[in-house]
């Protein structure tokens, strides 16, 4: 292929990627095109062409910058929020549970302010007050409003909505985890609200962790539990995030591994090595369908492998 044909072909490809919204690919192609044109001795209108290509490059860069920086998740119309609530909230007969579930659905879709508005009335409801407070705090943290979250915790404590102990837990100053009746827990909320966990999984700069087959966890929260480490198989792994399946029969283990729990003294078994480290429970949810229905899925993040 001659240089002229090559220029034509690269230009065509760049235009296609741009028209399809594949801006990174389009940018690479326009850069390649610019290099070809600049190196073409005796090309008519060379400087005009270079200017045109540079214009396209800067337009694409602007577009990419927009996509990277624009906070796009906070501008959904009310009717679309209703659709989200309808399509993604678990069906509940009790109207309070239904409303609460719908508020959490909004939070799962990044609509934190709306979720806070919908959860706030539940602070006065005995059954829901603590879960409402906990999720409101989580919403504020996801909006990176830690100071506001702390102020609210203080206010709730003062108003008698939450106890001192609960306030301490919500502030993250107490490592002991909240235990609430099973039907009231919304275990995967903490994980779904915490988008940084997802981002970390895609972060190519994360240190590489070897493939782990199983983990040994020493449970310390319950005196009735045998002090020997419990060994659990890893069902899948993404970087330093592990998912473990725990049989529904292992109630003691499930009850003692709550979201946010720090797991010190963990053992990680890979096909080629065993290493010790700590971890944190990112999420816990009951599997709702398939052959493992009724069992629990636990997501753990490995901290500082040694």
């Amino acid at each position, binding site marked *: 292929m001659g240089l002229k044909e090559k220029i034509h072909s690269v230009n065509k*490809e760049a235009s296609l990627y741009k028209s399809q919204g*594949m801006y990174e690919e389009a940018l690479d192609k326009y850069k390649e095109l610019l290099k070809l044109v600049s190196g073409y001795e005796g090309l008519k209108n060379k400087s005009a062409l270079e200017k045109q290509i540079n214009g396209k490059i800067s337009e694409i860069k602007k577009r990419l910058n927009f996509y990277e920086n624009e906070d*796009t998740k906070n501008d959904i119309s009310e009717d*679309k929020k209703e659709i989200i609530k309808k399509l993604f909230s678990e069906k509940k007969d009790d109207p309070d549970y239904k409303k609460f579930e719908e508020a959490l659905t909004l939070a799962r*879709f990044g609509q934190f302010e709306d979720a806070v508005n919908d959860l706030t009335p539940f602070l006065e409801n005995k059954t829901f007050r603590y879960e409402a407070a906990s999720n409101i705090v989580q919403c504020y943290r996801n909006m990176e409003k830690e100071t506001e979250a702390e102020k609210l915790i203080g206010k709730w404590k003062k108003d008698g909505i939450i106890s001192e102990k609960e306030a301490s837990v919500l502030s993250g100053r107490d490592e002991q985890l909240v235990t609430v009746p099973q039907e009231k827990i919304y275990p995967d909320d903490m994980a779904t609200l915490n988008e940084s966990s997802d981002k970390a999984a895609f972060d190519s700069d994360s240190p590489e962790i070897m493939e782990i087959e199983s983990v040994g966890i020493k449970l310390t929260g319950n005196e009735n539990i045998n002090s020997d480490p419990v060994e659990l198989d890893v069902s*899948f792994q993404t970087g330093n995030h592990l998912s473990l399946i725990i049989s529904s029969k292992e109630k003691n283990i499930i009850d003692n591994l709550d979201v946010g729990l720090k797991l010190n003294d963990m053992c990680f078994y890979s096909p080629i090595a065993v290493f010790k480290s700590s971890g944190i429970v990112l999420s816990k949810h009951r599997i*709702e*369908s398939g052959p493992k229905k009724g069992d629990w*899925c636990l997501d753990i993040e490995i901290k500082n492998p040694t």
Partner: protein
Amino acid sequence: MAVFNIQTREIECKIVFYGPGRGGKTTNLEYVHKTFKKNVTGDLVSIDTQGDRTLFFDFLPIGLGKINGCDVKVQLFTVPGQPQYASTRKLVLKGADGLVFVADSLKVQRKNNILSLQDLNDNLKSYGKSIFKVPLVLQYNKRDLEDEGFPVLSVDQLDKDLNRQLKVPSFTASAIKGDGVGKSLKKCLEHTLQHLQKELNWAGK
């Protein structure tokens, strides 16, 4: 997750179009909405698009009419393809009864196809499902670009990359022209309803 109402003899299932960003998932739904008007039972809802990228999901309800005396309703969803929307993608996938994986035939999308399929596998596992057991079809989209001289992956290559282990039905398609869209969806629906028959025995009750 499918809902079967024995009293009203109505079954509702969920099909999710999965795949890399810019691969043509929304275009698939737009074509279904435009072409299969008889079956479409509601508006095509896009929540929310930035330019023409899906940030949350697209949703289209369709009805297949009576099958074995049972009214079959289907909810079609697309997920946002870009990696940064991982949590939304996982939410939309929840409860899917069948899947159409829309792969992009463009050569530059090869890695993204593979990563997206791995992502699907991971997300299914997190729901206790196996990619080998869930009703799934592969759609190799944008085949029309081959005729226009653009660098596309061969069907053999796509099969090697994506379907070597899965061995699920695969279809070439051009969603923008509509080629292969109906076939992919039809096959996915067939598999899904057969699968649900085993689980719920909806057609035999």
